[in-house]
């Protein structure tokens, strides 16, 4: 741990340990029961005019390599700012972040997503970047259509998007071709289910990996019916809606158009499509890159099925960069974010790893040459051209807990550990707790 003369954890530089600090200290020490409390924070400070900021994000090793290169570039152009990084896989990231933030020591700048904006805003963790925009340290022009207001919640600018992605149907192209299926924009759910049955009958493989637990797909399905998964306060659907959705899924498992959930679970962390258990799967379009490295076949993107032949309910999702309200260097953090979203060189390094770059300058700077990235680009372009994109609903506080419950309970139901009515009841009860606190 680095000391910088401004006081360590708990004292907050005042020299006295206040009651709140003590409680936090104590809360963190549940470690006494053999738990591992994550994270020993390092204070960021300034030595000799050089400012150090901490940057935390989630992702894979491949992303780590790319990000390290972008930081080297940043430090070269801003020699007075040093960036310390910290990364984990997605779920571990949020556990560590939560612990750090509650201890008053979150990273200065960090990767963020729409599901966490309201949650951490309600807990006073996020910096309103509007002030830095006004001060000229952060430019908000040049964002691609649909992304300008992405990180805004209740008039506050809580995050700046670095890239966009959208839900898609990832398909094993070889299997679809052999089964003679050509997905087209505007195809309906009935056509999709027929295709799955055909794949099952002709290719000896399930058509889909099982869609019951894909929360974002269910959200789109609800939107096709004029509802949504989330409202600003909680759930935007009824128990009857979810029962119908999961009943359909349950039947699909029984009839073999969805892969055996047990096999899917066993294949993890490999995806069911790459493991050749299923021919298609609903997920984010930039995940295609991952499938290609995992599996042997060629993977492509197909449009989301619709109910009425037009509306898909799709919207752009995005990774963002947010800043901590407790940062001692808001100016440097803003300069860092500005660099990461606007500098063309960054886009050439990152590619579509975090989705399609959010600003036009970066979008123009990276023109993919490999087939996978080109497909992603074409897919997103087609979404814009056909005009199916809708605005996203900022998730309410507690959405992350509700999503985890949705995933888990859907899996229990798929594995036959719960009946559909039981699963629905359990989810609504857990969601109530999640949004209540």
């Amino acid at each position: 741990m680095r000391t910088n003369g401004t006081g360590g954890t708990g004292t907050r530089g005042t020299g006295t340990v206040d009651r709140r600090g003590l409680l936090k200290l104590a809360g963190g020490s549940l470690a006494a029961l053999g738990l591992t409390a994550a994270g020993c924070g390092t204070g960021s400070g300034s030595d000799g005019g050089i400012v150090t900021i901490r940057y935390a994000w989630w992702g894979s090793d491949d992303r780590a390599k790319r990000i390290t290169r972008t930081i080297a570039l940043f430090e070269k152009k801003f020699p007075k700012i040093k960036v310390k990084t910290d990364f984990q896989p997605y779920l571990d990231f949020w556990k560590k972040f939560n612990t750090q933030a509650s201890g008053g020591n979150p990273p200065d700048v960090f990767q963020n997503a729409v599901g966490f904006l309201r949650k951490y805003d309600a807990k006073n963790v996020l910096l309103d970047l509007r002030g830095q925009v006004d001060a000229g340290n952060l430019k908000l022009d040049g964002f691609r259509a649909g992304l300008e207001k992405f990180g805004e919640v209740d008039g506050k600018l809580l995050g700046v998007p670095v890239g966009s992605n959208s839900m898609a149907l990832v398909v094993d192209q070889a299997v679809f071709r052999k089964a003679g299926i050509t997905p087209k924009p505007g195809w309906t759910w009935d056509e999709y289910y027929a295709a799955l049955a055909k794949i099952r009958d002709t290719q000896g493989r399930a058509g889909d990996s099982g869609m019951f637990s894909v929360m974002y797909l269910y959200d789109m399905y609800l939107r096709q019916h004029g509802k949504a998964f989330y409202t600003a306060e909680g759930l935007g659907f009824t128990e009857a809606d979810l029962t119908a959705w999961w009943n359909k899924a349950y039947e699909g498992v029984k009839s073999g158009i969805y892969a055996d959930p047990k096999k899917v679970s066993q294949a993890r962390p490999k995806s069911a499509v790459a493991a050749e258990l299923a021919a298609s799967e609903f997920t984010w379009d930039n995940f295609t890159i991952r499938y290609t490295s995992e599996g042997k076949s060629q993977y492509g993107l197909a449009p989301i099925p619709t109910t009425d032949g037009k509306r898909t309910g799709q919207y752009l999702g995005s990774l963002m960069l947010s800043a901590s309200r407790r940062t001692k260097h808001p100016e440097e953090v803003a300069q860092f974010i500005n660099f990461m979203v606007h500098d063309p060189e960054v886009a050439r390094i990152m590619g579509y790893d975090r989705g399609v770059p959010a600003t036009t300058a970066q979008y123009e700077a990276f023109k993919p040459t490999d087939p996978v990235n080109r497909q992603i680009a074409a897919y997103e372009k087609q979404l814009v051209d056909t005009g199916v994109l809708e605005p996203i609903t900022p998730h309410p506080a507690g959405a992350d807990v509700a999503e985890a419950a949705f995933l888990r309970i859907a899996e229990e139901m798929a594995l036959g550990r719960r009946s559909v009515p039981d699963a629905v009841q359990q989810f609504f009860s857990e969601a109530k707790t999640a949004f209540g606190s």
Partner: protein
Amino acid sequence: MTHLQTAAAPETATAGSGPRPGPPGPAPKARPPAARRRARRENLAGYLFMSPWITGFLLLTAGPMAASLYFAFTDYNLFDAPRWIGLRNFTDMFADPRWRQSVDVTLWYVVVGTPLKLAAALGVALLLNQKRRGQGFYRAAFYAPSLIGASVSIAIVWRAIFSDDAIVDRAQRALFGSDVGGWIGDPDWIVYSLVALTVWQFGAPMVIFLAGLKQVPRELYEAAEVDGAGPWRRFWNITLPMISPVLFFNVLLETIHSFQIFGSAYILGGSNGTCGPADATLVYTCYLYVQGFENSRMGLASAMAWMLLLAVGLVTAVLFWSQRRWVHYEEDGR
């Protein structure tokens, strides 16, 4: 050995044993002030030398425990100040089916895993107690897993061994032609891989058993052999009673350990924010961790921790009570 006996059951260990310090004599005369000052100085020095430990205990053990006891009766999300809610955390806990699932999983794990581990430890200790060439090597080899076993890396290796299309999966396909697949992603099987991991780490109790076996007097075996007792009878009537204090110690320690299992269960099963597919390895501490650090319900997590403490205390008390029936302490305080 002696420290085990006295620690385990002072009342029986000291009964009728050797000379004891006699009853206190007449009160000593008041000491001269110089001696008293010296004694006080010595005490002070003692406290001074102990102060790092005392500080550590107060700050890192007693303080957090007191705080956690307070949190157990509050709604505390780590960010906002704790709010007193009385017994709500406890009623919430008992009403939560996931909590009951975690209790079931933990009890199953304790009841199945602990005896298996102790049986393995005792079995290997018996083998290693014989005079053979290279015993030192075997002892080291069998003890090694429990040295490294506590580490996260072993759980990750275990995960690799038992996952789909890995060694275990291939072996069971080759040997039995079965289609079970990897154990890690299978809600019916993953818990067995957890038990296998704990059994494999039998080194620590094994060393203690070995020490116990060394204490059993050879004359007893020789006498029994003369009387025509077979190996099984010798084990049952001599070895087991003679090592029963050690056995008791191991049962106690391993049971408490099993209740507290966290790391291996979390790493083996925690692939997507849960503990095992369909909560199959949702051990108590794993759920405690989920509630505290994922759902930000630190008050509830504290309540769960105190509940665990109570449960472990209760089980320990029952074990201590039961030892009167099956633990034999040597009369001569050997």
